[in-house]
């Protein structure tokens, strides 16, 4: 994970920490006001980014340059402005994570289904984080274990039918 990408995530985590601290110290009402304040600023720069993306339009060269920058890409994801669709982004993230995990699609509840691979570097936490980073609009991730081992048995059963 590059430093730039981490900055956007770290900022989000820091905001949550500070809100929790404010709630603990000054009560829930102060927390609600602060939430509104953060929303106000996030929506403002989000509207600015949306205007930028309208100007970029269908210029794929410019789009590629923008999403090549991890920080810009993570901010586009926050505001649903990423030029690539959900499936493409998840496939790309899984390919980068390595380990041969396979994207099975997003179900009706918005949960991304991923079948675990068998290679090295495919720790479940890393895959979950990779999918969440690439497609934060999904409602969650379900990791499906690879087909059960002892394939010979299934094959023989299949042959018996």
């Amino acid at each position, binding site marked *: 994970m590059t430093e730039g990408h981490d900055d*956007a*995530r770290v*900022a*989000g*985590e820091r*905001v*949550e920490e500070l809100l929790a601290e404010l709630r603990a110290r000054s*009560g*829930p*009402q102060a927390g*609600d006001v602060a*939430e*509104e304040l*953060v*929303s106000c600023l*996030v*929506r403002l720069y*989000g509207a600015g980014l949306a205007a930028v993306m309208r100007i970029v339009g269908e210029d794929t060269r410019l789009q590629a340059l923008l999403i090549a920058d991890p920080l810009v890409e993570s901010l586009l*994801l*926050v*505001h*649903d402005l990423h030029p690539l669709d959900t499936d493409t982004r998840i496939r790309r993230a899984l390919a980068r994570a390595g*380990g041969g995990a396979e994207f099975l699609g997003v179900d009706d509840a918005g*949960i991304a289904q991923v079948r*675990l*691979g*068998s*290679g*090295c570097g*495919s*720790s*479940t936490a890393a895959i*979950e*984080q990779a*999918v*969440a980073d690439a497609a*934060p*609009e999904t*409602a*969650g*991730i*379900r*990791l*499906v*274990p*690879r087909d*059960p*081992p002892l394939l010979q048995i299934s094959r023989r059963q299949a042959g018996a039918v």
Partner: protein
Amino acid sequence: MTFIPNGAGLLPEHTNPRQVPRGLRRFAAPAPRAAPAQEHCELCGETLGATHPHMVDPRNRSIACACTACALLFTRPAGRYRTVPDRVCDDPRAPLTDAEWAELAIPVAVAFFFVNSVLGRVVACYPSPAGVTECELDLEAWDRLAQAHPLLRALLPDVEAILVVREPTAETFLIPIDACYSLAGALRLNWHGFDGGAEVRAIMSEFLADLRQRARTLES
């Protein structure tokens, strides 16, 4: 647990989808708080419904929102807070006469009176475009009035008030103090022109209609 030969050894089988924190995304939603601001109990932080009890802090002359549990804890007059009771009383047997009202020399047609235990006396206030305004009260005149009117003597300090309305009809109620403040707030928000305007009159008549319905005759 399912054994998965992927080099990592035993892996828990994920039957439930995992939620991964989504950072700033939740703030980017167009209307994260479409619902009106949620009120919370000012003692324990519990989320409150639209109607909830209040507590008075007589020393700071402030009113705090409370959940039912905290309100019950503070029904005894001890400590900083006192829970506002919800009774509304009137006393049709001893209405306030014009002469008696004139003796108090209150310059407005709607006023409320409550006992401030910190000051140790009755305080007179009236709703105005500037919110609740305190006005001078002839305490001896009030005491004479209280002799003749049991309703005035039934007043609990800090948490209840006597609401006196002289126009369009003369009415007197013993009401919870938070009702006085919510009335004063509503009048202030909707006040137009010199006398408050039609909206203020409508709020006033609705408020009085509700009191008439809730009012129980003071037990003698």
